[in-house]
């Protein structure tokens, strides 16, 4: 554990008088699982994943600017099954982060803070994210198949 001002409060002695590190009160593990906590940590992880994916997207743009050879190399990576999985993951992360951000901006205005409203909106955000992901992914795959067929013919 990193050295930290709180460390000063963890010095104690046991019944024999020996110096010990005092136990920490239980905190994270005493809570029952709730959807809201998964959605909150999920939004944070989605934000980090979305940033990493954006880095890859800019690398792709750099390859596009570089020349035909760099671009075909980038496309080989992007259309590899693993590349497609990463692209899908980036899309899902960004979509969820987008939906959760709307909730956050609503919260910042002071609305939808009741427990019932938070639960309702949480469930809605899961359905909206799933719906958006499925329809966008379908549209992307259908459009790219349709167009690449057109150029080959």
């Amino acid at each position, binding site marked *: 554990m990193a050295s930290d001002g709180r460390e000063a409060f963890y010095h104690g002695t046991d019944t024999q008088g020996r110096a010990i590190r005092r136990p920490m009160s239980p905190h994270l593990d005493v809570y029952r699982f709730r959807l809201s906590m998964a959605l909150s940590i999920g939004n944070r992880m989605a934000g*980090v994943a979305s940033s990493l994916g954006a880095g890859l997207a800019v690398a792709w743009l750099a390859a*596009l*600017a570089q020349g035909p050879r760099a671009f075909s190399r980038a496309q080989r990576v992007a259309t590899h099954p693993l590349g497609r999985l990463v692209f899908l993951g980036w899309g899902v992360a960004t979509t969820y982060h987008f939906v959760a951000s709307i909730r956050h901006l609503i919260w910042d205005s002071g609305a939808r803070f009741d427990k019932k409203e938070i639960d309702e909106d949480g469930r809605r955000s899961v359905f909206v994210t799933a719906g958006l992901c499925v329809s966008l992914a379908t549209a992307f795959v259908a459009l790219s198949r349709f167009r690449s067929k057109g150029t080959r013919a």
Partner: protein
Amino acid sequence: MNRLSDMRTPLARAKGLGGLADGAEHWTAERVSAALLGPLTIWGVAQLLRLAGRDRKSILVWAGRVQNAAPLGLLIALTGRHAQLGLEVVASDYSRGWRRFGLRLIIRLSTLLFVALGFASLARILITRPKEGQS
């Protein structure tokens, strides 16, 4: 930062405790960049669908148009800024002291590099773009 609005003790400020030494501005900048990214992201997704399955030349023609290059540049800049702010919040929640300082430095440099690479690529595309008629 306005010293009158800083509620921390001088010691706490010197130790860099609190929201990365500038809490409120950081928080506001995160929301403002998020709100601006909303419409830009929708635009970006629409363009992605428009370009899906196209060859390099048609993508270059698309990116070479000012009405596409301008929002794309803005999208890159705001994504870099918003990623920097968000990653800093995450890093400052799970790290302290030198580790926090180091992570902050890495986040700042890499998001700056992200924007620089995006702008340089966009500039190169705009300079070397193929003529629209030839596509």
